[in-house]
């Protein structure tokens, strides 16, 4: 198991190397340990009426939160923690469509889905460690998985387990999933939308704008495989969309330049249109180390998220 004290920080390793190290939870722990080691710890405290979990008493804790019943049973001091002590309610919306299950270099690079799954796990752990309630919605053409935001450590295990069991689906329809998020986040929170954005742009933008309109912070992580950014090869190829089976026959060499520009324009368009709505946007290449991706996506002046 890699740790922050290990020979290498997992968040700085190549994603494919990281993927070979073990289970999702273990790897994610390593990623986050490494990632957080480079940041200030910010265990923010707060209290609310909704019990969340126990933790060991530490000098300075208010005595009124000591669980006296548990002291009686276990002869140890624990203090109660409540949901309201988290600063944030975050929802990770993960695209699990067929288009995500693709790698431009199979065997040497993670698929976009694998990358996004690890990124989601790492992100949720980061948020949970900050005492932010974190939930998960995975979707393809329907909502495949919904885990409401919780702040407990055990919740991360549920998140990780669910992510590990999640398989890529079929088509992509982001709007229902994003609308579902609105229902789940009754108060203002953070929505992290992780997708390759190969979806209906208009409806997705509409849903994201609606989230923003409801006061949520929205972060879009655009997962891109380097193979999608460039066309290569001289011979004629029939490119087929794994989701829609739509196909285009062309010679990559002839179209490489204009394709590069088109993709660049598409990314720019997403960025501009999202930012115009106050939505943060980050394009993440699947050949980037997770730590760099997380840092670029999450860190901004003043703290995480």
């Amino acid at each position, binding site marked *: 198991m890699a740790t922050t004290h290990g020979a290498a920080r997992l968040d700085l390793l190549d994603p494919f190397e990281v993927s070979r190290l073990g289970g999702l939870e273990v790897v994610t722990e390593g990623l986050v340990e490494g990632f957080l080691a480079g940041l200030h710890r910010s265990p923010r405290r707060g209290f609310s009426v909704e019990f969340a979990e126990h933790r060991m008493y530490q000098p300075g804790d208010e005595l009124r939160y000591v669980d006296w019943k548990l002291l009686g049973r276990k002869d140890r001091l624990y203090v109660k923690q409540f949901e309201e002590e988290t600063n944030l309610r975050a929802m990770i919306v993960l695209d699990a469509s067929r288009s*995500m299950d693709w790698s431009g270099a199979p065997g040497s690079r993670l698929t976009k889905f694998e990358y996004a799954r690890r990124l989601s796990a790492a992100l949720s752990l980061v948020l949970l460690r900050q005492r932010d309630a974190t939930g998960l919605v995975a979707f393809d053409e329907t909502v495949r998985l919904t885990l409401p935001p919780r702040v407990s450590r055990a919740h991360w295990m549920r998140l990780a387990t669910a992510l590990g069991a999640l398989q890529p689906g079929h088509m992509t329809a982001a709007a229902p999933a994003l609308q579902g998020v609105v229902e789940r986040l009754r108060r203002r929170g953070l929505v992290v939308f992780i997708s390759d954005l190969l979806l209906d742009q208009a409806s997705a933008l509409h849903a994201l704008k609606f989230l923003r309109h409801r006061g949520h912070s929205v972060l879009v992580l655009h997962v891109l495989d380097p193979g*999608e950014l460039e066309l290569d090869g001289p011979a004629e190829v*029939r490119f*087929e*969309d*794994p989701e829609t089976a*739509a196909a285009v*026959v062309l010679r990559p060499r002839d179209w490489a330049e204009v394709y590069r520009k088109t*993709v660049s324009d598409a990314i720019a368009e997403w960025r501009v249109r999202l930012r115009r709505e106050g939505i943060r946007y980050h394009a993440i290449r699947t050949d980037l180390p997770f730590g760099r991706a997380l840092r670029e996506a999450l860190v901004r002046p003043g703290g995480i998220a």
Partner: protein
Amino acid sequence: MIGFLNPLWLWALPLATVPLILHLVARRQPPTVPFPAVRYLQQVTRDHRRRLKLQHWLLLLVRTLLMLALLLAAAGPTVARDGLSGHAPAAMVLVLDNSPSSGAVTDGTAMLDRLRQAAGAVLDKATTEDALWLVTADGLARRAPVEVLRTVIDSLTPSEIRLDLGVAIAQARDILADEARPAEVVVLSDLQQSALSGVAIDAPVVVAVPAIVPPTNLGVAALDPGPQPWSPGDNRVRVRLLGDSGRSSPMAVRLGDRASRPQLASVGPVLEASIAASLPGWWPLTVELDPDEFRADDRRATLVRVIPVAKAQWAPSNAYLAAAAMTLREGGRLQDGREVTLGWLGPGASVVEPPADIAELGSINRALERRGVPWRYGGPVVREELSDSGRLLPPVRVARRLRLSYAGGAARGVEATVGGEPWIVRAGEVVLLGSRLDPTWTGLPTSAAFVPLIDALANRLVRGEQELLNGAPGAPVQLPDDVDEVTREGRTWRVEGGAAWRPPATGVYLLQSGPDTLGALAVNLDPRESELATASRAQIEALWSGARLVSLDRVAEASFAAGARGHLRTPLLWLALLLGLIEMGLASFQRRTA
């Protein structure tokens, strides 16, 4: 119409479709690759596909045209250059008929002069890049630069050799068969009917038709001195004339210095003349007509041998032989004596029959051996056959014969054969007959050829002399086996006995075997030359289907028609270069802007 210098390259024209085939093959089975971002590709191609498709097909068209241009350039296309001067480098065979008839004079000008003038006009159009051949009556195809050919043509005189125009065109066709340049045959001839023969025309042939009526002509077609040798005294000569009927000419027959009585001769029945021979020897015999517009056939010559007739003995018991001998004696062709023995092997010259009793074969063969005769009688052959036709005899029936074998190397002296086997042979002054002169052996004694045969055997063959041969200049003559030299007026040709030999010119040639004169060869003009009538256009077109007939004075204009075509190779190569540049530009532009 388009012609091609290297038409074989046209077979490669389908290669021009290679770009299209590659395009279709490449389009047929492109590998399928899963690619989620197809929407971007669709967006890209939606915006550019029409333009790129146009560019693509344009590129395909340019590549196909490029291939086509290169392949066509390799094939060397030529097109007619109507109205333009000059011609592309061409190959031409000029058939100039200087056969004897070309010496015929019309309106004061010999036909050969007219043909030479036309040939000069044709050569005026030739360039140094043309390949030119000249074929004349001697059958030689001379390839030379235009100036050399001009000199050759200017120095041409009427040849004594007949030219078969069909053979000459076939020769020209063979010459041009491997020629890459536009090829053409130009025939300049008086177009005698007798000179035309059928030939397949598969190359452009221009035939110049003289608009001249040939002169009326009377020529000596044949001079027959009759059986050889002549004996001293009066001998008869037969003469046949050819030419235009209704014309007559004084005819003079001369034997050495002696002339026959002059007579007026014309075309018609065979003419006979009597002329006296006196001293033994070889004497020139000529017949001559008054000169006319075609001089070459006004005289004919041969050689006759004058020698006393043979003094022969024969066995009265052989009725057929005796009857023939007596007939010859009555005709003055034989005398009684012992110089020649007819029927058995005598002490001197002998004509030997096979013995009636086969048991005598051994003694005859031993006697032949003692006489140094290399021939021997062998076993009998009993079957109905015909003798092979030859100079000595027409085919006659042979029912029985004895095989004749030669006892020393290659057989020599075979005078007649049956089924290819020797039947009448000669060695020195001995002649062996393979069959007895008996109708149960052969039909010879009852045939019309019998008496002349006995005459030839007794007077000529046993004396080691051959018959008088006739030939024409340039035509092959089969020489007798014993001949090893041919002489004429001090000039000698070494020849192979039994082989064909082509006498170079008219005249009388002596056939020699060492110091002995075996016979003579009289070489005179081919009698067909005397018929000056020209072939009609219909006759020419029937024999040379596809030939282009033009009048003699316009042949120069019509010549080099095959080469009077513009070369398309250079423009095609320039076009290919241009297409190549367009292709590179288009391909580059397509890659840059796709």
